Protein backbone atom coordinates (compact mmCIF):
# COMPACT_ATOMS: atom_id res chain seq x y z
CA UNK A 1 0.00 0.00 0.00
CA UNK A 2 2.81 2.37 0.95
CA UNK A 3 4.53 1.40 -2.26
CA UNK A 4 1.51 2.32 -4.36
CA UNK A 5 1.28 5.69 -2.63
CA UNK A 6 4.98 6.27 -3.25
CA UNK A 7 4.67 5.30 -6.90
CA UNK A 8 1.66 7.58 -7.37
CA UNK A 9 3.58 10.50 -5.91
CA UNK A 10 6.54 9.61 -8.08
CA UNK A 11 4.35 9.40 -11.18
CA UNK A 12 2.81 12.81 -10.44
CA UNK A 13 6.23 14.36 -9.81
CA UNK A 14 7.75 12.92 -12.98
CA UNK A 15 4.72 14.03 -14.96
CA UNK A 16 5.00 17.55 -13.54
CA UNK A 17 8.74 17.56 -14.09
CA UNK A 18 8.19 16.69 -17.75
CA UNK A 19 5.66 19.51 -18.14
CA UNK A 20 7.84 22.10 -16.40
CA UNK A 21 10.94 21.13 -18.37
CA UNK A 22 8.93 21.20 -21.60
CA UNK A 23 7.60 24.66 -20.69
CA UNK A 24 11.00 26.03 -19.94
CA UNK A 25 12.47 24.35 -23.02
CA UNK A 26 10.36 26.72 -25.09
CA UNK A 27 11.89 29.64 -23.22
CA UNK A 28 15.35 28.14 -23.42
CA UNK A 29 14.97 27.44 -27.13
CA UNK A 30 14.15 31.08 -27.81
CA UNK A 31 17.04 32.23 -25.67
CA UNK A 32 19.46 29.86 -27.42
CA UNK A 33 18.20 30.99 -30.81
CA UNK A 34 18.56 34.60 -29.77
CA UNK A 35 22.08 33.98 -28.52
CA UNK A 36 23.11 32.29 -31.75
CA UNK A 37 21.61 35.02 -33.89
CA UNK A 38 22.98 37.83 -31.73
CA UNK A 39 19.57 38.93 -30.44
CA UNK A 40 18.23 39.31 -26.91
CA UNK A 41 15.24 36.96 -26.93
CA UNK A 42 12.22 37.14 -24.61
CA UNK A 43 12.92 39.54 -21.75
CA UNK A 44 9.63 41.30 -20.98
CA UNK A 45 7.60 38.92 -18.81
CA UNK A 46 9.25 38.77 -15.40
CA UNK A 47 12.99 38.91 -14.70
CA UNK A 48 14.95 37.80 -17.80
CA UNK A 49 11.61 36.91 -19.37
CA UNK A 50 11.33 33.90 -17.07
CA UNK A 51 7.54 34.12 -16.90
CA UNK A 52 7.24 33.97 -20.69
CA UNK A 53 6.26 30.25 -20.81
CA UNK A 54 3.49 30.88 -18.26
CA UNK A 55 2.20 33.81 -20.29
CA UNK A 56 2.26 31.70 -23.47
CA UNK A 57 0.46 28.82 -21.75
CA UNK A 58 -2.17 31.14 -20.30
CA UNK A 59 -2.73 32.74 -23.67
CA UNK A 60 -3.26 29.33 -25.29
CA UNK A 61 -6.10 28.56 -22.88
CA UNK A 62 -8.01 31.71 -23.74
CA UNK A 63 -7.71 31.39 -27.51
CA UNK A 64 -10.67 30.35 -29.60
CA UNK A 65 -10.95 26.64 -30.24
CA UNK A 66 -11.39 26.47 -33.96
CA UNK A 67 -12.55 23.43 -35.92
CA UNK A 68 -12.71 23.75 -39.73
CA UNK A 69 -16.06 22.70 -41.16
CA UNK A 70 -14.56 20.04 -43.42
CA UNK A 71 -12.66 18.42 -40.57
CA UNK A 72 -13.49 15.19 -38.82
CA UNK A 73 -14.49 16.62 -35.43
CA UNK A 74 -13.82 13.60 -33.25
CA UNK A 75 -10.40 12.77 -34.65
CA UNK A 76 -9.53 16.45 -34.72
CA UNK A 77 -10.00 16.59 -30.94
CA UNK A 78 -8.60 13.12 -30.31
CA UNK A 79 -5.28 13.52 -32.17
CA UNK A 80 -3.63 16.25 -30.04
CA UNK A 81 -4.75 14.41 -26.91
CA UNK A 82 -3.14 11.22 -28.20
CA UNK A 83 0.08 13.04 -29.06
CA UNK A 84 0.27 14.48 -25.56
CA UNK A 85 -0.70 11.21 -23.86
CA UNK A 86 1.99 9.18 -25.62
CA UNK A 87 4.58 11.86 -24.90
CA UNK A 88 3.78 11.63 -21.19
CA UNK A 89 3.75 7.82 -21.10
CA UNK A 90 7.36 7.19 -22.20
CA UNK A 91 8.82 8.46 -18.94
CA UNK A 92 7.46 5.39 -17.10
CA UNK A 93 10.44 3.07 -17.48
CA UNK A 94 13.32 5.51 -16.97
CA UNK A 95 15.33 5.00 -13.75
CA UNK A 96 15.63 8.54 -12.39
CA UNK A 97 17.87 8.00 -9.37
CA UNK A 98 19.65 5.25 -7.39
CA UNK A 99 17.44 3.14 -5.12
CA UNK A 100 16.83 4.34 -1.59
CA UNK A 101 16.32 1.88 1.28
CA UNK A 102 14.41 3.20 4.28
CA UNK A 103 13.58 0.64 6.96
CA UNK A 104 12.77 -2.54 5.08
CA UNK A 105 11.26 -0.84 2.04
CA UNK A 106 13.27 -0.28 -1.13
CA UNK A 107 12.17 2.84 -2.96
CA UNK A 108 12.91 2.53 -6.66
CA UNK A 109 12.88 5.85 -8.45
CA UNK A 110 11.39 4.38 -11.56
CA UNK A 111 7.65 4.41 -12.13
CA UNK A 112 7.53 0.87 -13.50
CA UNK A 113 10.49 -1.48 -13.49
CA UNK A 114 9.52 -3.36 -16.63
CA UNK A 115 11.88 -6.09 -17.77
CA UNK A 116 11.10 -5.06 -21.35
CA UNK A 117 11.84 -1.36 -20.82
CA UNK A 118 13.28 -0.60 -24.25
CA UNK A 119 10.53 -2.45 -26.09
CA UNK A 120 7.97 -0.46 -24.10
CA UNK A 121 9.59 2.79 -25.25
CA UNK A 122 9.70 1.64 -28.88
CA UNK A 123 6.04 0.60 -28.64
CA UNK A 124 4.92 3.98 -27.27
CA UNK A 125 7.02 5.74 -29.91
CA UNK A 126 5.18 3.81 -32.61
CA UNK A 127 1.84 4.89 -31.18
CA UNK A 128 2.95 8.51 -31.13
CA UNK A 129 3.04 8.45 -34.94
CA UNK A 130 -0.76 8.16 -34.85
CA UNK A 131 -1.17 11.50 -33.08
CA UNK A 132 0.51 13.32 -35.96
CA UNK A 133 -1.02 11.17 -38.70
CA UNK A 134 -4.60 11.49 -37.38
CA UNK A 135 -4.14 15.18 -36.67
CA UNK A 136 -3.02 15.91 -40.21
CA UNK A 137 -5.65 13.73 -41.82
CA UNK A 138 -8.55 14.93 -39.69
CA UNK A 139 -7.92 18.61 -40.50
CA UNK A 140 -8.80 17.84 -44.13
CA UNK A 141 -6.24 20.36 -45.30
CA UNK A 142 -3.91 19.47 -48.15
CA UNK A 143 -0.85 20.89 -46.47
CA UNK A 144 -1.62 19.16 -43.19
CA UNK A 145 -2.14 15.86 -44.97
CA UNK A 146 1.14 16.12 -46.86
CA UNK A 147 2.96 17.03 -43.70
CA UNK A 148 1.39 14.23 -41.68
CA UNK A 149 2.30 11.66 -44.32
CA UNK A 150 5.84 12.96 -44.55
CA UNK A 151 6.21 12.97 -40.78
CA UNK A 152 4.88 9.47 -40.27
CA UNK A 153 6.91 8.04 -43.11
CA UNK A 154 10.03 9.70 -41.72
CA UNK A 155 9.35 8.49 -38.20
CA UNK A 156 8.84 4.88 -39.18
CA UNK A 157 11.94 4.93 -41.36
CA UNK A 158 14.17 6.15 -38.57
CA UNK A 159 12.63 3.79 -36.08
CA UNK A 160 14.38 0.91 -37.85
CA UNK A 161 17.86 2.36 -37.46
CA UNK A 162 17.03 3.38 -33.90
CA UNK A 163 15.96 -0.15 -33.01
CA UNK A 164 19.14 -1.56 -34.55
CA UNK A 165 21.40 0.87 -32.70
CA UNK A 166 19.79 0.00 -29.36
CA UNK A 167 20.52 -3.69 -29.96
CA UNK A 168 24.24 -3.09 -29.44
CA UNK A 169 23.48 -1.62 -26.03
CA UNK A 170 21.32 -4.63 -25.22
CA UNK A 171 24.28 -6.84 -26.17
CA UNK A 172 26.63 -4.90 -23.89
CA UNK A 173 24.38 -5.30 -20.87
CA UNK A 174 22.57 -8.53 -21.69
CA UNK A 175 19.22 -7.09 -20.72
CA UNK A 176 16.38 -5.05 -22.20
CA UNK A 177 15.55 -3.41 -18.88
CA UNK A 178 16.74 0.19 -18.53
CA UNK A 179 17.44 -0.49 -14.87
CA UNK A 180 19.99 -3.21 -15.69
CA UNK A 181 21.51 -1.10 -18.45
CA UNK A 182 22.12 1.71 -15.96
CA UNK A 183 23.48 -0.64 -13.30
CA UNK A 184 25.89 -2.18 -15.80
CA UNK A 185 27.42 1.26 -16.47
CA UNK A 186 28.35 1.92 -12.83
CA UNK A 187 31.71 0.10 -12.92
CA UNK A 188 35.09 1.53 -13.81
CA UNK A 189 35.99 2.39 -17.39
CA UNK A 190 38.27 -0.19 -19.07
CA UNK A 191 38.88 -1.60 -15.57
CA UNK A 192 40.99 1.43 -14.55
CA UNK A 193 40.18 2.06 -10.90
CA UNK A 194 40.23 5.86 -10.79
CA UNK A 195 37.72 6.01 -13.64
CA UNK A 196 35.10 4.55 -11.30
CA UNK A 197 31.51 5.36 -12.30
CA UNK A 198 32.54 6.23 -15.86
CA UNK A 199 31.87 2.85 -17.46
CA UNK A 200 29.49 4.53 -19.91
CA UNK A 201 28.41 2.91 -23.14
CA UNK A 202 29.47 5.94 -25.18
CA UNK A 203 33.11 4.88 -24.79
CA UNK A 204 32.34 1.48 -26.29
CA UNK A 205 29.67 2.51 -28.76
CA UNK A 206 30.46 5.95 -30.24
CA UNK A 207 28.99 4.98 -33.62
CA UNK A 208 25.86 3.57 -31.96
CA UNK A 209 25.48 6.86 -30.13
CA UNK A 210 25.73 8.91 -33.32
CA UNK A 211 23.14 6.74 -35.05
CA UNK A 212 20.83 6.88 -32.05
CA UNK A 213 21.19 10.65 -31.73
CA UNK A 214 20.39 11.18 -35.42
CA UNK A 215 17.34 8.94 -35.15
CA UNK A 216 16.23 10.72 -31.98
CA UNK A 217 16.33 14.02 -33.87
CA UNK A 218 14.25 12.51 -36.66
CA UNK A 219 11.79 10.88 -34.24
CA UNK A 220 11.19 14.20 -32.48
CA UNK A 221 10.71 15.95 -35.84
CA UNK A 222 13.45 18.35 -34.88
CA UNK A 223 15.61 20.29 -37.32
CA UNK A 224 17.45 19.31 -39.52
CA UNK A 225 14.74 16.66 -39.94
CA UNK A 226 11.68 18.87 -39.41
CA UNK A 227 10.24 18.03 -42.81
CA UNK A 228 6.82 17.89 -41.18
CA UNK A 229 6.70 21.61 -40.58
CA UNK A 230 8.86 23.28 -43.17
CA UNK A 231 7.15 26.64 -43.28
CA UNK A 232 8.17 27.54 -46.81
CA UNK A 233 6.37 24.55 -48.33
CA UNK A 234 3.76 23.43 -45.85
CA UNK A 235 2.71 26.52 -43.87
CA UNK A 236 2.66 25.11 -40.34
CA UNK A 237 2.71 21.43 -41.11
CA UNK A 238 0.28 18.96 -39.53
CA UNK A 239 -0.90 21.51 -36.97
CA UNK A 240 -1.82 24.24 -39.47
CA UNK A 241 -5.52 24.08 -38.60
CA UNK A 242 -5.13 23.64 -34.87
CA UNK A 243 -5.59 26.41 -32.38
CA UNK A 244 -5.90 26.98 -28.66
CA UNK A 245 -4.69 24.20 -26.37
CA UNK A 246 -4.86 21.64 -29.18
CA UNK A 247 -2.02 23.43 -30.90
CA UNK A 248 -0.43 23.77 -27.48
CA UNK A 249 -0.54 20.00 -27.05
CA UNK A 250 1.26 19.35 -30.31
CA UNK A 251 3.99 21.84 -29.45
CA UNK A 252 4.18 20.61 -25.88
CA UNK A 253 4.36 16.98 -26.97
CA UNK A 254 7.34 17.84 -29.15
CA UNK A 255 9.21 19.37 -26.23
CA UNK A 256 8.31 16.57 -23.84
CA UNK A 257 9.51 14.07 -26.45
CA UNK A 258 12.73 16.01 -26.70
CA UNK A 259 13.21 15.89 -22.94
CA UNK A 260 12.46 12.17 -22.79
CA UNK A 261 14.77 11.45 -25.74
CA UNK A 262 17.56 13.35 -24.04
CA UNK A 263 16.98 11.35 -20.89
CA UNK A 264 16.98 8.09 -22.81
CA UNK A 265 20.23 9.06 -24.55
CA UNK A 266 21.73 9.78 -21.12
CA UNK A 267 20.51 6.47 -19.74
CA UNK A 268 21.60 4.33 -22.69
CA UNK A 269 24.94 5.95 -23.50
CA UNK A 270 25.97 8.26 -20.68
CA UNK A 271 25.52 6.12 -17.62
CA UNK A 272 22.09 7.35 -16.48
CA UNK A 273 22.37 8.46 -12.88
CA UNK A 274 25.96 7.20 -12.52
CA UNK A 275 28.64 9.81 -12.06
CA UNK A 276 32.36 9.70 -11.28
CA UNK A 277 33.14 9.63 -7.58
CA UNK A 278 29.81 7.95 -6.86
CA UNK A 279 31.36 5.17 -4.74
CA UNK A 280 32.84 7.73 -2.30
CA UNK A 281 29.44 8.92 -1.10
CA UNK A 282 28.15 6.88 1.81
CA UNK A 283 24.97 8.78 2.68
CA UNK A 284 22.22 7.02 0.67
CA UNK A 285 19.92 10.07 0.70
CA UNK A 286 22.65 12.26 -0.73
CA UNK A 287 23.58 9.60 -3.27
CA UNK A 288 20.00 9.45 -4.56
CA UNK A 289 19.75 13.22 -4.77
CA UNK A 290 23.11 13.59 -6.52
CA UNK A 291 22.30 10.73 -8.90
CA UNK A 292 19.10 12.49 -9.91
CA UNK A 293 20.97 15.77 -10.38
CA UNK A 294 23.60 14.01 -12.52
CA UNK A 295 20.92 12.52 -14.78
CA UNK A 296 19.18 15.90 -15.07
CA UNK A 297 22.44 17.66 -16.00
CA UNK A 298 23.08 15.11 -18.74
CA UNK A 299 19.50 15.36 -20.02
CA UNK A 300 19.54 19.17 -20.02
CA UNK A 301 22.84 19.13 -21.85
CA UNK A 302 21.31 16.99 -24.59
CA UNK A 303 18.30 19.28 -24.80
CA UNK A 304 20.80 22.05 -25.42
CA UNK A 305 22.52 19.94 -28.10
CA UNK A 306 19.14 19.43 -29.80
CA UNK A 307 18.67 23.20 -29.91
CA UNK A 308 22.23 23.84 -30.93
CA UNK A 309 21.79 21.51 -33.93
CA UNK A 310 18.47 23.12 -34.80
CA UNK A 311 19.93 26.61 -35.01
CA UNK A 312 23.11 25.51 -36.78
CA UNK A 313 22.11 23.11 -39.54
CA UNK A 314 19.77 23.85 -42.44
CA UNK A 315 16.87 21.53 -43.19
CA UNK A 316 17.36 18.38 -45.26
CA UNK A 317 15.53 17.76 -48.50
CA UNK A 318 13.01 14.93 -48.29
CA UNK A 319 14.89 12.59 -50.64
CA UNK A 320 18.13 13.24 -48.73
CA UNK A 321 16.34 12.41 -45.50
CA UNK A 322 15.03 9.09 -46.78
CA UNK A 323 18.41 8.26 -48.36
CA UNK A 324 20.18 8.90 -45.07
CA UNK A 325 17.69 6.87 -43.07
CA UNK A 326 17.46 3.82 -45.29
CA UNK A 327 20.67 3.60 -47.25
CA UNK A 328 23.20 4.84 -44.70
CA UNK A 329 21.95 4.48 -41.15
CA UNK A 330 20.39 1.02 -41.44
CA UNK A 331 23.48 -0.68 -42.97
CA UNK A 332 25.73 1.20 -40.54
CA UNK A 333 23.67 0.16 -37.54
CA UNK A 334 23.54 -3.43 -38.79
CA UNK A 335 27.32 -3.52 -39.28
CA UNK A 336 27.86 -1.98 -35.87
CA UNK A 337 25.68 -4.65 -34.32
CA UNK A 338 27.53 -7.52 -36.00
CA UNK A 339 30.97 -6.13 -35.11
CA UNK A 340 29.90 -5.62 -31.50
CA UNK A 341 28.59 -9.17 -31.29
CA UNK A 342 31.79 -10.57 -32.81
CA UNK A 343 34.13 -8.58 -30.56
CA UNK A 344 32.17 -9.46 -27.44
CA UNK A 345 32.19 -13.15 -28.37
CA UNK A 346 35.92 -13.19 -29.08
CA UNK A 347 36.67 -11.40 -25.80
CA UNK A 348 34.56 -13.90 -23.87
Amino acid at each position, binding site marked *: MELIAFKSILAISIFTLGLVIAMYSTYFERKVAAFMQDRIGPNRAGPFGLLQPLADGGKMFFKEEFIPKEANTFLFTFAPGLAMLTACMTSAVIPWAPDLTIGNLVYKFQIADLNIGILYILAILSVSVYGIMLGGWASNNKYSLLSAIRASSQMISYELAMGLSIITIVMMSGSVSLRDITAQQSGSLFGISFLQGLNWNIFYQPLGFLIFMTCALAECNRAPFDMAECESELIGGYHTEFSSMKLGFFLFAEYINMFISSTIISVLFFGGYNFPGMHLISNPMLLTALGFVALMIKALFFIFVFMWIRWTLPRFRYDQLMQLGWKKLIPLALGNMLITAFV*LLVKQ
Partner: protein
Amino acid sequence: MEYLYILILAAISLGFVMLTIFGSNLLGPKKSTKHKDENFECGVESDGDARQPISVKYFIVAILFVLFDVEVIFFYPYAVIFKEMGMQGFVAVLLFVAVFLVGFYYIIKKGILDWNYTSVELKKP
Protein backbone atom coordinates in the same frame (compact mmCIF):
# COMPACT_ATOMS: atom_id res chain seq x y z
CA MET B 1 2.29 -5.59 -10.60
CA GLU B 2 4.62 -3.16 -12.36
CA TYR B 3 1.99 -2.61 -15.05
CA LEU B 4 -0.30 -1.18 -12.37
CA TYR B 5 2.08 1.77 -12.02
CA ILE B 6 1.97 2.32 -15.76
CA LEU B 7 -1.82 2.44 -15.46
CA ILE B 8 -1.46 5.04 -12.69
CA LEU B 9 0.72 7.19 -14.95
CA ALA B 10 -1.72 6.67 -17.83
CA ALA B 11 -4.60 7.75 -15.59
CA ILE B 12 -2.76 10.91 -14.52
CA SER B 13 -1.85 11.81 -18.10
CA LEU B 14 -5.33 11.03 -19.41
CA GLY B 15 -6.92 13.13 -16.67
CA PHE B 16 -4.67 16.05 -17.49
CA VAL B 17 -5.29 15.77 -21.24
CA MET B 18 -9.09 15.54 -20.87
CA LEU B 19 -9.25 18.40 -18.38
CA THR B 20 -7.16 20.66 -20.57
CA ILE B 21 -9.06 19.88 -23.76
CA PHE B 22 -12.44 20.50 -22.12
CA GLY B 23 -11.15 23.44 -20.11
CA SER B 24 -9.77 25.32 -23.07
CA ASN B 25 -12.95 24.52 -24.97
CA LEU B 26 -14.98 26.32 -22.28
CA LEU B 27 -12.61 29.24 -21.82
CA GLY B 28 -12.06 30.51 -25.35
CA PRO B 29 -14.47 32.63 -27.38
CA LYS B 30 -16.64 31.06 -30.07
CA LYS B 31 -17.47 32.85 -33.27
CA SER B 32 -17.83 31.28 -36.67
CA THR B 33 -18.27 32.84 -40.07
CA LYS B 34 -18.52 31.22 -43.46
CA HIS B 35 -15.07 32.06 -44.71
CA LYS B 36 -13.35 31.54 -41.40
CA ASP B 37 -14.55 27.94 -41.23
CA GLU B 38 -12.93 27.05 -44.50
CA ASN B 39 -9.63 25.24 -44.57
CA PHE B 40 -6.57 27.40 -44.76
CA GLU B 41 -5.01 27.48 -48.18
CA CYS B 42 -2.47 30.29 -48.32
CA GLY B 43 -5.17 32.92 -48.38
CA VAL B 44 -6.71 31.82 -51.68
CA GLU B 45 -10.17 30.27 -52.04
CA SER B 46 -9.90 26.64 -51.02
CA ASP B 47 -10.40 24.20 -53.85
CA GLY B 48 -11.82 20.79 -52.98
CA ASP B 49 -10.61 18.91 -49.94
CA ALA B 50 -7.70 16.72 -48.92
CA ARG B 51 -9.42 13.38 -49.43
CA GLN B 52 -7.36 12.66 -52.50
CA PRO B 53 -5.02 9.84 -53.43
CA ILE B 54 -1.40 10.39 -52.43
CA SER B 55 1.87 9.08 -53.82
CA VAL B 56 2.14 5.31 -53.53
CA LYS B 57 5.76 5.69 -52.40
CA TYR B 58 4.69 6.42 -48.85
CA PHE B 59 2.59 3.30 -48.81
CA ILE B 60 5.51 1.19 -50.01
CA VAL B 61 7.73 2.68 -47.31
CA ALA B 62 5.11 1.77 -44.72
CA ILE B 63 4.99 -1.84 -45.95
CA LEU B 64 8.78 -2.07 -45.97
CA PHE B 65 8.82 -0.70 -42.45
CA VAL B 66 6.54 -3.46 -41.23
CA LEU B 67 8.72 -6.09 -42.92
CA PHE B 68 12.01 -4.77 -41.62
CA ASP B 69 10.75 -3.90 -38.18
CA VAL B 70 9.71 -7.49 -37.65
CA GLU B 71 13.25 -8.54 -38.58
CA VAL B 72 14.72 -5.97 -36.20
CA ILE B 73 12.52 -7.24 -33.39
CA PHE B 74 13.93 -10.74 -33.98
CA PHE B 75 17.38 -9.42 -33.05
CA TYR B 76 16.28 -8.43 -29.55
CA PRO B 77 15.92 -11.93 -28.07
CA TYR B 78 19.21 -12.84 -29.75
CA ALA B 79 20.96 -9.79 -28.25
CA VAL B 80 19.88 -10.81 -24.75
CA ILE B 81 21.23 -14.38 -24.92
CA PHE B 82 23.95 -14.16 -27.55
CA LYS B 83 26.75 -14.82 -25.07
CA GLU B 84 25.30 -18.21 -24.17
CA MET B 85 24.81 -19.07 -27.83
CA GLY B 86 28.45 -18.41 -28.68
CA MET B 87 29.95 -18.55 -32.15
CA GLN B 88 27.36 -21.01 -33.44
CA GLY B 89 24.58 -18.55 -32.72
CA PHE B 90 26.61 -15.79 -34.31
CA VAL B 91 26.94 -17.74 -37.57
CA ALA B 92 23.19 -18.35 -37.56
CA VAL B 93 22.59 -14.62 -37.13
CA LEU B 94 25.05 -13.87 -39.94
CA LEU B 95 22.90 -16.05 -42.20
CA PHE B 96 19.79 -14.21 -41.04
CA VAL B 97 21.45 -10.86 -41.71
CA ALA B 98 22.48 -12.13 -45.16
CA VAL B 99 18.83 -12.84 -45.98
CA PHE B 100 17.95 -9.40 -44.59
CA LEU B 101 20.58 -7.81 -46.83
CA VAL B 102 19.38 -9.66 -49.93
CA GLY B 103 15.94 -8.16 -49.44
CA PHE B 104 17.51 -4.79 -48.75
CA TYR B 105 19.64 -4.94 -51.90
CA TYR B 106 16.55 -5.90 -53.90
CA ILE B 107 14.52 -2.87 -52.78
CA ILE B 108 17.46 -0.55 -53.45
CA LYS B 109 17.96 -1.98 -56.94
CA LYS B 110 14.23 -1.66 -57.60
CA GLY B 111 14.62 2.05 -56.93
CA ILE B 112 12.02 2.02 -54.15
CA LEU B 113 14.17 4.25 -51.97
CA ASP B 114 14.95 6.73 -54.74
CA TRP B 115 12.77 9.74 -54.13
CA ASN B 116 14.19 11.64 -57.03
CA TYR B 117 11.44 11.48 -59.65
CA THR B 118 13.63 11.17 -62.75
CA SER B 119 15.65 8.28 -61.44
CA VAL B 120 12.42 6.40 -60.68
CA GLU B 121 11.31 6.97 -64.24
CA LEU B 122 14.61 5.69 -65.60
CA LYS B 123 14.45 2.48 -63.60
CA LYS B 124 11.02 1.50 -64.84
CA PRO B 125 11.27 -1.91 -66.51
